[in-house]
């Protein structure tokens, strides 16, 4: 049994050590907001925060995050940056199919938690690992800027 700290709660999980955190969240803990897109850290749909850092859960073995603080999209709205991002996502009508947006929101929330006034280059750097096949990128950029203004 592994003991995890997920969204501020202690949780016990009976999973093999090599199981990616993504599948522990989705299949064992039924936190399905975090999405499976590629399994190779190429698309960012599975992004969660590990001790505050945006991390691709699809390639992170669960054994590597025991004892660390794991935050998922289901709870990121309880942080100041996370709430600002989610509000901006609605205000700018960012999501289309929506499947990648959990990961986009987590990457954006981590960016704004660390950088209150990101430039376009900062946004490119923080968000280039998150693919959106609906190409909502112009609205993601606008929403990050809107969220930054609301946090100022």
């Amino acid at each position, binding site marked *: 049994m592994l003991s995890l700290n997920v969204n501020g709660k202690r949780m016990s999980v009976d999973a093999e050590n090599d199981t990616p955190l993504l599948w522990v969240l989705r299949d064992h803990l039924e936190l399905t907001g975090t999405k*499976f897109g590629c399994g190779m850290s190429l698309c960012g749909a599975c992004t969660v925060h590990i001790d505050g850092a945006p991390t691709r859960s699809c390639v992170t073995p669960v054994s590597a995050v025991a004892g660390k603080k794991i935050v998922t999209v289901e709870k990121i709205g309880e942080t100041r940056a996370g709430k600002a991002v989610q509000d901006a*996502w609605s205000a700018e009508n960012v999501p*289309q*199919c929506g499947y990648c947006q959990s990961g986009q929101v987590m990457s954006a929330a981590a960016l704004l938690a660390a950088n209150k006034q990101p430039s376009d280059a900062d946004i490119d750097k923080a968000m280039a690992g998150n693919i*959106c096949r609906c190409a909502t990128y112009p609205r993601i950029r606008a929403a990050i800027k809107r969220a930054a203004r609301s946090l100022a």
Partner: protein
Amino acid sequence: MITNESRRDFIKAAGALTLGVFVPQSMAQSGPGRTIGAFAGTPFTPNAFVRISSDNTVTVIVKHLEMGQGTYTGLPTLVAEELDADWSQIVAEGAPADASKYNNLFWGPAQGTGGSTALANSYEQLRKAGAAARAMLIAAAAEKWKAPPSEIRVAKGIVSHGTQKATFGELAADAANQKVPEDVKLKDAKDFVYIGKPAPRTDARAKSNGSAIFTQDVKLPGMLTAVVLHPPRFGAKLKSFDAAKAKAVKGVVEVVPFSTPATNGVAVLAKDYWTAKKGRDALSAEWDETGAFRLGSAEILAEYKRLAVTRGASARKEGDADAALQSAARTFEAGYEFPHLGHASMEPMNCGVQLGSESCEVWNGEEFQTVDQAMVAQAVGMKPEQVKLNQLYAGGSFGRRANPHSDYVVEAATIAKAIGARAPVKLVWSREDDMRAGYYRPMYYHTLEAAVDAQGKLTAWRHVIVGQSILTGTPFESMMVKEGIDATSVEGAANLPYAIPNLAVDLHTPKIGVPVQWWRSVGSTHTAFATECFLDEIARATKKDPLELRRALLAKHPRHKAALELAAAKAGWGKPLGQGRARGLAVHESFNTFVAQVVEVSRRQSSFRIERVVCAVDCGVAVNPNIIAMQMESGIGYGLSAALSGAITLKDGVVEQSNFHDYPVIRINQMPRIETYIVPSSEKPSGVGEPATPVIAPALANALLALNGKPVRALPLSNQGIALA
């Protein structure tokens, strides 16, 4: 000449005759002249599309899949408009599979989403549904307040007469006892409250906090996840397999072979994906490859080029193109190459199935209900009405989830049957499984020849298209493939809008063993590129302005012309640009929507950058300008991914790509600035999900031609040594 109308008729006929699922229209429980009958607390359900609860929620039942294109916002807008609801009380809900109520009106009796028809076919239907509900709420208020119905007003979800006021929720129970009106009057456009305004998306919040449920998220009690081993080549058959190593993986529950009309293989089932995947990866299998497809993309292209110089089936013939080419002052010719393309939606294909003795229940982002019901029924030995489909959000599709063979849906049902229906099954494909499962946009090769007279006027146009048929071998073949012409292979070419007196379009349809399917904007994905790029090559060679050349040829096509002129004006077409900068344009109609784009590029050492894209669209009445702009941006981004780097290639029959490292797609740092302008129109609305996609690649290629003086004759650009800075 092939038009969109003929396509609709084809599908209508295909649904009725081939699938044998015709159901009369009038099976709804409520109807004109009848009352619904209800008691207090029961929601008011005036028709199949509207449900008003005592808590004042207006639920709009949406018959079309929400896969990003905005159906859960656009269709409720139509109801809210005529109902005079308040937008904040609107909730969207996916319709069940029931073609008697929820058929696509452009497809006859079949239920499904595609061809950018969702809003277009629902425009009057849902407005009438809203107006009928409104009339019944008014009748209930009139009875309650003993006032003439004509004096009762409805606005923003409040019904009022003088000082008396009631919410929809308060009147719902009484409204249910009113007669459903025989006929309803729809609003004049000048009275629209929501149509033409940017109502916010109904699904934005749920899709930002992880609560929106996709097929991938379905979990039923006792459910097993199935991960499959498919053959390495299309057409191969499972000969034998050794399950021992898969079964040795702790947690693997079942290892079963399966076979469907589309494919075959071995499924490994476990309580969770990771265990099932480890089991699948441990499997060893042998395949009978006697019927397998073993060509490579280069060999396919060589064969297509050989075919292109011979006569094909005629898709359009006006005048005598051959004679005009022979006697011309000057002629031009070019060939254009297009690779196979994968849809690569963010959510890999997946499907949940619970198989019982009397019914089969499916959880899926359902794009093709009528076909999936029939195909699943066949696979599990039931009647279509025993197959219940639960509609979920789709994490993209771009056409992939409307598979005419129901490939992955039938695969899930077949695996559920193979384990004796002992547990609900969720089939989950990995990204690699998804990318290698086929059903690609076909590969094509086009040749074009044209002639101009001494004044530089176009006198002849000869277009030959070579590529696989999407519809052959599907339930739609008998109706949509006529005299050797698959309508989807030539759309956008056979209906070329330009006034050229001698015009011929021919088609060759080779049969090869690569499964193919429609891909966002279907035939226009390649025909728009070939026609618009060739025209620019002629403009350049004859020293004509690409805009003026098109304007002169579009006298009889005012909607193409107006879109083009709007885009050109907004982009500053003709205004001088600095050194190392250039513009290109293209215009194209698909699904009765007219899109023009101007792309501005700049040279960056050996590569280039897209500085700006200006897009003009005429989609009739603009129901939600915000959704329209989103779909233009999305279509441009999707088309750019394909133009820049999209290619599925085969080597000895094996697909060479597997994931986003070798099938790269556009990312935020590469996405250009996009401005969208809507051509004002009072025409009936047409779709916006697809028509922006085919225009971006030719507009970009034409900008590169202007920048570098070299035409682009093969996609993707990455294979031509051209890359974004």
